């Protein structure tokens, strides 16, 4: 099966600043991919490279087997919803649907109409007077009715209230179930994505720290607690992601290929949010140490 997004040494530089460096990914089709990371980590840059709105400074990227925005056929297969639900404030809901039909060869007018009906949107209403949740739903309608094979969404729920957020994700998951489309969506909050994603990419400070199926990530990370000891004494093949110690106890979050057999440890499962936070603070600690070294020099 062709990968949805495949990158090799991908990088993007703005002036002297690298927004994304050495990014190598292969995302299989049929997933809902969560692209997570703090603000400014490079999420939007990666998404803009995927849609062809930015050209790479280094490396290569392919979406559905060809260069992003390579031509009309490739554009028709990729749906994109930019941050802050872009709509035309001066156009009515009906205008938006006409626009969608006019611009997209694979437009599903029936799907668009039934969604607008179910959302109870007034066709004559100007989009600028819709609520935030309604705007997001209108933008999602356009993106879904285009009938893309992959749908890319940049922070789709960040600005929505909890109810609108839930409704948006419900409709997105319904579309995934009905149309079998692949989805890539970004958020700086893992809790937004925990239920919907089955594939996770963690981007911190312009680098990919973690990428893989959620189930696999959860199965290979464990939280260990036990009598205090030096993390250096752990067996090979076990990588410590985060560690905290009291005078008597050590608590470690580790990545391990196999089961943890040492009876001294109490092993418990790790949630996705804890896992992501552990990697993020590990990266932050490393940056702090580097800065410290530079100051000493």
């Amino acid at each position, binding site marked *: 099966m062709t990968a949805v997004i495949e990158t090799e040494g991908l990088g993007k530089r703005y002036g002297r600043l690298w927004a994304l460096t050495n990014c190598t990914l292969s995302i299989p089709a049929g997933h809902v991919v969560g692209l997570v990371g703090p603000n400014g980590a490079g999420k939007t840059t990666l998404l803009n490279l995927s849609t062809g709105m930015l050209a790479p400074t280094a490396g290569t990227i392919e979406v559905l087997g060809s260069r992003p925005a390579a031509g009309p056929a490739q554009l028709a297969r990729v749906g994109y919803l930019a941050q802050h639900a872009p709509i035309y404030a001066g156009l009515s809901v009906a205008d938006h649907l006409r626009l969608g039909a006019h611009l997209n060869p694979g437009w599903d007018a029936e799907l668009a109409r039934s969604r607008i009906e179910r959302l109870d949107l007034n066709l004559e209403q100007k989009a600028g007077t819709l609520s935030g949740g309604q705007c997001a739903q209108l933008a999602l309608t356009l993106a879904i009715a285009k009938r893309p094979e992959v749908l890319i969404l940049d922070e789709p729920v960040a600005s929505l209230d909890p109810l609108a957020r839930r409704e948006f994700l*419900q409709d997105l*998951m*319904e579309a*995934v*179930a009905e149309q079998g489309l692949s989805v890539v969506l970004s958020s700086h909050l893992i809790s937004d994505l925990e*239920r*919907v994603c*089955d594939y996770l990419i963690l981007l911190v400070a312009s680098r990919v720290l973690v990428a893989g199926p959620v189930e696999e990530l959860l199965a290979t990370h464990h939280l260990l607690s036990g009598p205090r000891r030096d993390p250096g004494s752990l067996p090979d093949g076990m990588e410590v992601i985060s560690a905290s110690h009291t005078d008597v106890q050590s608590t470690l979050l580790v990545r391990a290929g196999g089961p943890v057999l040492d009876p001294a440890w109490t092993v418990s499962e790790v949630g996705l949010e804890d896992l992501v936070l552990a990697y993020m603070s590990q990266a932050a600690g490393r940056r702090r140490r580097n800065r410290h070294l530079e100051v000493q020099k």
Partner: protein
Amino acid sequence: MIEFHLNGRSGVAPYLQLIHQVRHALRLGLLREGDQLPKVKDVAAGLAINPNTVLKAYRELEYEGLAAARPGIGTFVTGTLDGGSLAAHGPLRRDLQRWLARARRAGLDDESIEALFVSTFRSAAEEGIA
């Protein structure tokens, strides 16, 4: 038709929560052989969860012999978990209600009742094994 719900704080994987709810409904007789399980699309849309999570739960139930998928129609219950004991549920429930009323009169609160039940249940189970 049953309706699923998810507890985000329980720490139990969502697909396992779905499986538990089907098994629970089978035990209580809320689901019987031949009943249809909610459609994958409806569960995904209703709970805002990944459809693959629902599919995984249904596949697991199929593997356990409790459900079977009919392509294009849906997934249906094919097994039972009540072990033919459903008829006994009524009288047992009434006994339990009487016992609960006595426990409350004796001044036990919800937590004490639950703790007493669980510890008695455990020790009875252990004696059963020995």
